């Protein structure tokens, strides 16, 4: 039996900060155009980095942090290791909104991607409200109901997306497919800043629910008798996560795997307490997505591979490797 070090929190969080800083340095210095970031503060290279590369790297950090942390929180809340931020139906709603925007040529209305953003956000919010309405009507704020409703909404939206793709022209269809792979091309500082008001509340709130999620690992009755209001916790986590995830999907498409895999890698490495798991997911998720996006930018340079493809390609095998070598992620056997 392995005994956890009392210094584990310090070690994990320090490791997360170092990992994130390393990813930032790598993301800012590696790219299709060979430039050294320390060449000078006001030369062309620095300006290039500041305007083209930096917003994208910071966006990747925000997206990674949001997705990984949301995944960790939802897995804890629903006590199900297979849940990811995309299981709750919001991302499919956002995708549907985006695909409608692309189909009717609305993506260019407010500039490059910004016309698509409000449509996708609205789609995500709509599916969240639908989920809330269903749960409220059945008076069951339980994991199973929420999970099944979310998955059903996802399937419905996917069917709608396929239908719209079928009616689209080749050019529109290509744009949709590319968008659905999850991509961060053509990112500006404005777009990165636009995301902040949507994801910051979630990043702050989820850092505060660690205790409640810990109590929930002992079962619903123990959590309730320890003062956790389960319906309130569920509604608030869903609300913050939905808003944040809808915005990330609206901006960059659904980026697969980050929200599922980062929390699990941490769990396999012995991070059990949600008090530590949530902030650690935030740090490692941010670093992981910067790293994946850097690979996406350079692997087929000058072509850019959608980052969602890379996260799955790196994440999948690495996850399987850990699974086989470090034991089980079945965190919910009794």
């Amino acid at each position, binding site marked *: *039996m392995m*005994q*956890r070090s*009392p210094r584990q*929190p310090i070690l994990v969080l320090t490791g997360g900060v170092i990992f994130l800083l390393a990813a930032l340095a790598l993301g800012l210095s590696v790219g299709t155009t060979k430039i050294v970031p320390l060449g000078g503060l006001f030369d062309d290279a620095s300006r290039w980095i500041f305007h083209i590369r930096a917003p994208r790297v910071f966006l990747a950090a925000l997206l990674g942090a949001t997705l990984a942390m949301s995944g960790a929180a939802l897995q804890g809340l629903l*006590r199900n290791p297979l849940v990811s931020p995309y299981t709750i139906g919001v991302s499919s709603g956002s995708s549907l909104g985006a695909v409608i925007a692309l189909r009717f040529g609305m993506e260019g209305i407010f500039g490059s991607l910004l016309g698509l953003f409000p449509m996708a956000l609205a789609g995500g919010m709509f599916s969240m409200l639908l989920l809330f309405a269903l749960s409220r009507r059945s008076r069951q704020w339980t994991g199973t109901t929420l999970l099944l409703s979310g998955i059903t909404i996802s399937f419905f939206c996917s069917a709608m997306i396929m239908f719209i793709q079928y009616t689209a022209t080749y050019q529109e269809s290509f744009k949709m497919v590319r968008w659905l792979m999850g991509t961060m091309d053509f990112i500006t500082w404005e777009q990165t800043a636009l995301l902040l008001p949507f994801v910051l509340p979630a990043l702050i709130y989820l850092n*505060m629910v*660690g*205790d409640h999620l*810990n*109590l929930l*690992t*002992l*079962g619903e*009755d*123990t959590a*309730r*008798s*320890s*003062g*956790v*209001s389960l319906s309130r916790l569920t509604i608030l986590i869903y609300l913050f996560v939905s808003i944040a995830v809808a915005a990330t999907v609206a901006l960059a498409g659904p980026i697969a795997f980050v929200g599922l895999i980062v929390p699990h890698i941490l*769990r396999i490495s012995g991070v*059990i*307490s949600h*008090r*530590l798991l949530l902030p650690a997911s935030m740090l490692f998720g941010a670093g992981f997505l910067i790293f994946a996006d850097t690979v996406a930018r350079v692997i087929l340079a000058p072509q850019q591979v959608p980052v969602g493809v890379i996260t799955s390609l790196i994440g999948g095998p690495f996850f399987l490797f850990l699974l086989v070598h470090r034991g*089980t992620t*079945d*965190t*919910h*056997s*009794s």
Partner: protein
Amino acid sequence: MVKTLLHFTNLSLAAGDVPLLRDLTGSIPRGKMVAIAGASGAGKTTLLRCLSGLNGGFTGSINFLDQPMEQWSARRMASHRSYLPQNEQVSAGWSCLDVVQLGLVPIRDSSLRNALTPAAGDLALIEEVLALTGLSVFSHRLFHTLSGGEKRRILFARALLQNRDIMFLDEPTAFFDPGQALRFWNLLSEIHTKSQSSIVVVTHDLQAILNSFQEVLLLHRGSLMATGDPKKVLTEHGEKAFGVSLSIGEDPSWGCFIKTRGNRHP
């Protein structure tokens, strides 16, 4: 100090069309060990959940420490009583120390300072509980590697850490071997005497009810059949409640014992 722990009037609860509790009226004094007994499906767990504030949706009224249950928030309730559920699935990965330590969460403010590692004073509290329950040797074992009985003891230790003044325990000795059960009842009596605890327990262990408890609430098909001194209640109503013949005896050195013999189905 409030003398009555709980007072309930015309308490009823149904799940859909199925009545679980039918019009119960009674009270539980403070500072006593009180058992809730009855055949399976008589409504014991439902009653315990209602009384400990975990089950809403009942009709009638419950007063906890002379205040209507509706006025007790989940947070405030958590600092006044602890509750051990009958059967809970615990996620894997926690050590026993982690599980016990979670008993402190409801009674500590969740400031960032003691967020990740427990303060020295808290550690002493945890160690005291582990020593009291004889579980110190398990503290660094992984919870999910324990046997059923050992798991129950760890979960009991968590409840004890949360609050030992008022405890609600749902079949604490399920999965215990006879030795474990006996030591548990003795420990519970010891805690009760030392801290003047109010302890409400759902159990099928009739012998323990006779020897360790001051009062029993006997349930029969969702109704309160009898309440009062365990020996009297079980002698007068036990046969009907459980559908068996009962013989209760007393031995100066062994205490009360109970013999059962099967009846033919009525």
